[in-house]
């Protein structure tokens, strides 16, 4: 993360640019729901595309605004484990939901 005033001054443009990108992509997601992506209505591909854009936007926020593009190693470590546990929680919830006893019985 930049900490001397000179570097920060240079970064300001970047912040503005990222802000604009975020605004534009918000517009894109909204427009997207009015276009059909293969499946009619709200299908898996719409959700996937929407989430992809959201992930992209949030990574910009995290990387640029929250300075995660140049942070200390320790903080990456925390976040790595947190993301693993979050992903594990989500995945296992879903797997448990997809696999009720009758399901694995018949498959």
């Amino acid at each position, binding site marked *: 993360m930049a*900490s001397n*005033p000179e570097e*920060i*001054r240079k*970064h*300001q443009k970047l*912040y*503005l640019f*990222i*802000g604009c990108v*975020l*605004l534009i992509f*918000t517009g894109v*997601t*909204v427009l*997207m*729901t009015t276009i059909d992506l293969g499946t*009619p*209505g*709200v*299908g898996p591909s*719409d*959700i996937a595309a*929407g*989430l992809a*854009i*959201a992930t992209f*936007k*949030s990574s910009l*926020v*995290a990387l640029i*605004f*929250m300075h995660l593009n140049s942070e*200390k190693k*320790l*903080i990456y470590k*925390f*976040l790595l*484990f*947190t*993301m693993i*546990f*979050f992903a594990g*929680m*989500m995945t296992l*919830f*879903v797997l448990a*939901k*997809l696999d009720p006893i009758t399901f694995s019985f018949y498959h």
Partner: protein
Amino acid sequence: MEIPYTVTARSDTGLWNAKIGIWLFLASEVMLFGGLFSSYVYLRMGADFPWPVHELKVLPGFLNTMNLIISSVTVVFAWASLKMRMYTRYKICMSITLACAVIFMCIKAYEYSGKFAHYGVTLNDGTVLEGHPVDDLISFDDVTAITVTTATSDLKFLNERDGDDAPVMVKKPLELDGADAASDLPAEFELDSGNLRSIKKAARQKELAAVRLELTSAPLAFNVHERRQKGYNDTQLTFRDGTTLEGKMTNDSIVFGVDRIDMRMTKDIENSPFFGLLSPEGESWEEWKGKFLKHYGSTMDEFLREHEEFDKAKALENVEFQRVGLRLATVEPGSHHYPEVVIPRSEKRFYSNFTPRYNPYYAIYFLMTGLHGLHVIGGALVMGYMLFFNGWLYKKNPEHLANRVEVAGLFWHFVDLIWIFLFPLYYLF
């Protein structure tokens, strides 16, 4: 005693304390919202009702997303200004951020209040009517006796009384004779909180669970909210607190202005009892029903032509058909004249406004956005504090203030980041 590394970074970790603290806190926040997102997925996958899609108006959500993004930019600029020691610019940026927070909450309040004012009735056959109640109170007249329980009764039930607020006079019950606490009660007395307390006390002395009071004033009439009662029949109504009225139930139907009919869960659409509900509008109602069924039928035919693999039952389960069917059922968009139906309570399975009670979709919607809103408020309070009360720190140690703003900013970006996911999940799909 000084705690080291409150302002300057420790050389081997490269971090000052609060920076570690905030990132740890954010990690736990990730798990908090992670739990909520996981629950969202779990509930949505397991929903045995049509999960509402495109239920919220996109525009307010869109504006709020823009709003938060702008505030994220300004908060970075506030921090950058401090780093460059431009205090006035810092103040301006911070103020814009705060203004964004306030706007965000106002838009939220607008959205919430819209939901609270909107109701849904689920009929026994699964048909859901959405709209606005015209009259949904249970009328209970000719009340001549009231039973109060010693454990829980209070006088709140009188708020549901219909008509004038003349005092309610009751006869002193014979069962209380001989109890000290009842000795100063006259043979006929007003039912107020002091007297109620004496009655309950006396009843407890005599180990009575409840006492029946006979009215000596004119019979009372009540209009009771459904939520306030625990059960009723033709001659009795019990409130949640255990107070029981004796009288006559005169009307318990819901008069409902319908703006949307959802028949996705209806077992047999053509013969839904919904169509048999009495309507004050007579002719036009029949006409409307005809239009509805015709329209519905032709959409179904068209859908089946397009998708040969479907039969009628399967089509009803199809998302696309459901959406069309649902939109179809919306009564003339833009018109302020809704058909009014009268629903006897025996026909209703569930009735609620669009609060967490309405279904798990609204439950998790309110929980997630509410919790997010609390984060917005919390962040705004902290930043407001820094803006208005931390001038002294800037004079003393501007770097320290910059650190604080950085920490608050990290939190604020996180709040924005969560919203970036909430917006599509609730507003777009």
